[in-house]
């Protein structure tokens, strides 16, 4: 099993302890954050910052200290008119004493890549962002980078890509295989089995997979000898996903409509 080492002493803040909402009004995007840092045993005087970012946009908001939290009045995201793609980071930083010879303030705890809830749409952001890509040969593909996977739809072959991913044809035929490819990537290529690191997209996908009804308990560890067991687990999990999303019934509907 591949383990990630953290020598920084920085504590990961669990995703359930950070709730960020955005609202859109009068052409401006504003956010609100509810932070529960009680369980991390952080010094009361440590400073809390919330940072918003997208592309080169980056903005920092001072949320007071752990012991005396204080939201800034102005929580409008500058240069942002729509919340698409905006992510947040919560950083707890030691309140270092001033002075030229003193080292800079250390980061004590961190939560990154937090996607906000949009109060207007009242839905959580998807685990799988979708965007267009350029291909005149392939209709869709999943792109993996350092960040979460991204589903790309060819803008050359598909004009209404937003509508395309919700069509019954795409949902029934492509979605289960997309899910399988992501699990395979996480488990068998990146050998990541940790479900606890809420900042890691791979852990979030594994938590989603394990929460599907009927998914068997995953094997305890990942070794060269039990890769077959993990392949079986992926297979069972994709089946559970299909049951949950009623893939069979959906297929029946659109096939019937065609006839």
């Amino acid at each position, binding site marked *: 099993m591949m383990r990630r080492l953290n020598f920084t002493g920085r504590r990961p803040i669990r995703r359930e302890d950070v709730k960020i909402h955005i609202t859109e009004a009068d052409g401006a995007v504003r956010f609100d954050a509810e932070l529960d840092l009680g369980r991390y045993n952080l010094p009361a005087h440590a400073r809390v910052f919330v940072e918003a970012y997208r592309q080169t946009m980056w903005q920092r908001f001072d949320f007071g200290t752990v012991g005396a939290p204080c939201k800034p009045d102005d929580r409008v995201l500058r240069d942002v008119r729509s919340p698409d793609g905006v992510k947040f980071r919560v950083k707890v930083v030691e309140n270092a004493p001033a002075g030229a010879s003193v080292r800079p303030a*250390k980061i004590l705890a961190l939560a990154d890549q937090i996607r906000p809830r949009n109060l207007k749409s009242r839905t959580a952001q998807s685990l799988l962002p979708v965007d267009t890509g*350029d291909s005149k040969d392939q209709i869709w593909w999943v792109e993996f*980078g350092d960040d979460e996977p991204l589903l790309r739809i060819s803008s050359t072959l598909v004009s209404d890509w937003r509508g395309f991913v919700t069509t019954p044809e795409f949902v029934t035929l492509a979605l289960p295989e997309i899910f399988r490819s992501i699990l395979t990537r996480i488990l068998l290529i990146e050998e990541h089995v940790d479900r606890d690191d809420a900042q890691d997209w791979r852990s979030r996908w594994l938590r989603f997979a394990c929460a599907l009804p009927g998914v068997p308990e995953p094997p305890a560890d990942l070794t060269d000898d039990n890769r077959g067991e993990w392949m079986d687990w992926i297979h069972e999990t994709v089946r559970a996903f299909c049951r949950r999303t009623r893939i069979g019934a959906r297929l029946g509907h659109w096939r019937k409509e065609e006839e």
Partner: protein
Amino acid sequence: MKRVELHRLNDQGMARMGEFLDSLTGDSPQQCPRSILTDGRTSESLPVKVLVEEDRVFPRRYEAAEYLYNLLSSSALREPERDRGLWAWLALLWFDQLCPPDKTGQRKPGDRARWIPEIANPRRYYRHFLLGPYLVYRVHARCPDLVEPILLSPLDTALSEAYKWTVESPSLLASEAVMGAIKRLYFDEKTRRLRRGSQSKGPGSIRRLTAVLNQLERTFDLHSLSVERLLQLLPREFRAPA
């Protein structure tokens, strides 16, 4: 000075632009399809009227970014940086200076993302010839000198290491200390160029600086620092010229 009204390419326009770009690397390169810039089937008007200088020449990425920032920030356009069609349109408008022919007369357009931006991809959106420099400039629009060292190269040349690295780390790009340190260490104010050796792989190079800062950023809050304090914090290999 010839001014034209800024449009955006629609899906059909971008598909046509893609065909044209593909043709340039094939056996029968097509002529630049300039008509799609104004044809109602391939382009759309914007909600506000913005006039662009069609024959404007940009010696470096910096001047292009400055021009586009002044143009777009003074318009009432809503989030132009999210509009793929707008950036594709601009790239096609200035196609000749973005993709000049080489000695053999051949044009090499390169990656499609240089022409039609991949807005949502954090590893690729900045590759666009014009959108990337515009976004970098915008971060420090009140003090644009800070980004000059990373926008020195002409538009039709490859992206520098310093540019790629800062754009991929928005929190470091936003840091005046980091950008100030880059300027202090590598920028020659007299020649307005990067100092010799800055772009090597050796000690003290920009490449090394990015590695060191990436490491420091994992542990320390670099935003609380001044330029001087950050320079003091760096290993000996990074020493600002007197």
